[in-house]
């Protein structure tokens, strides 16, 4: 039995795992969880993931949740196969971890708040709260200024190699820029924009995005 991912194409956290599996060249089975019908809150699902969220990974006897734990596990398990994602030396690995944390703590939080307002809220037939959007955009732009400096000095976030840190930005940024139409904040920052163009032209990303449309 191989790798099974339980998730949804609506979840950027699920997409993160799927993109990585493509980068690693690893076969997997995707079992779709119907979020709209609350399948992630059923007792059967909660047995696997007590916090009721996707994605969940099953690999043999291991059941794993939290997308960044899943992506790290896969990167370590398949290290040496497909794209190297972790960094080589202990210091490189630490810098990858640092930028994974930056994505988790500083980038993803305002980004998801904005995406929730400009993408998901309208899809639920409700009204966007423009005040929240403005406040969260201001927070995100401050973070993007720091990214612009980092990416002026390095091709990718943790150094001159593509890593888990960059990969983690792909699905959320796609939602923000391509679906939420907030690309102007990237276009205004040339090195950030070049980095986004680079990572979003990777075949792994294109392949998974084709499945979501």
């Amino acid at each position, binding site marked *: 039995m191989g790798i099974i991912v339980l998730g949804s194409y609506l979840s950027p956290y699920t997409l993160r795992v799927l993109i990585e599996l493509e980068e690693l060249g690893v076969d997997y089975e995707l079992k779709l969880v119907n979020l709209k019908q609350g399948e992630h809150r059923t007792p059967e699902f909660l047995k696997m993931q*007590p*916090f009721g969220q996707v994605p969940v990974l099953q690999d043999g006897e*291991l059941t*794993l*949740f*939290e997308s*960044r*734990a*899943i992506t*790290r*596990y896969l990167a*370590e*398990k398949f290290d040496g196969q497909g794209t190297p994602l972790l960094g080589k030396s*202990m*210091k490189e*690995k*630490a*810098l990858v*971890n*640092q930028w*994974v*944390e*930056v994505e*988790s*703590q*500083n980038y993803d*939080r305002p980004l998801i708040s904005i995406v929730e307002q400009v993408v998901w809220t309208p899809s639920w037939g409700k009204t966007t709260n423009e005040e929240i959007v403005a406040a969260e955009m201001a927070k995100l732009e401050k*973070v993007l200024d*720091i990214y612009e*400096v*980092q990416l002026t000095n390095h091709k990718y976030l943790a150094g001159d190699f593509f890593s888990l840190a960059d990969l983690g930005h792909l699905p959320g940024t796609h939602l923000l820029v391509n679906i939420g139409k907030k690309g102007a904040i990237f276009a205004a920052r040339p090195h950030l924009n070049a980095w986004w163009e680079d990572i979003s032209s990777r075949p792994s990303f294109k392949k998974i995005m084709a499945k979501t449309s």
Partner: protein
Amino acid sequence: MIRILEPYIPLCPEHPEQVYLVCPPALRTWAEQVEDFELVKVDLAAGEQLKPEFLAINPFAEIPVLEWGDFHLYESRAIARYIAEKFKEQGPENFLGKTLEERAVVYQWIESESHQFNDSAFSPWVMEYYLAYYEEKRPVREEVIAPLRARLEKFFDRVEARLSKSKFLAGEYYTMADMNIAPSLWHIMNFEPELITSRKHVKAWYEILTSRPTFKKMLEADAGWPLL
């Protein structure tokens, strides 16, 4: 020489996003055992973290930061992981997990602590208590605390279920997942102890974590923290 830059004042009301409550206080007591080590206090109230010299090493203007020669690392969980990997032999057995699968489960609970507990519940909850008791000298606002308390209750219900099956979060060993949450549990015991004491396994786990010598050392070192 390892230097860890830590807050001089743990609460800076003008910049609440820089309050820092997880991990390095416990971790540094371990780092102390293994290397020439220096703790450097950064004066948040004076805005030291906003000065160019600090921004040059952490442009996000956050603490803690680890400095070792000209290598700098920020983000507490990245720092903790780096120290734990670097000084694996001196640390507790199985601290990050031994096998690939164990390591993944440890990381799963580190992430759960971050997203299900710290960011969405504990951090704003404890902020309200500190602002009320120490800064603004007023009662806590129940309309702020009630929904956060509800989230904490949900989180602890799930942890109670987990700990009824294993001694620690990630399994039978004390790991970084337990270490990361211990200082926060201490604060919860100070303000709303029933969140912990009403749950048999959570209470027993709390007692184990806070009776560890390194935890006690952390409390001594942090003697300036305001506690009720």
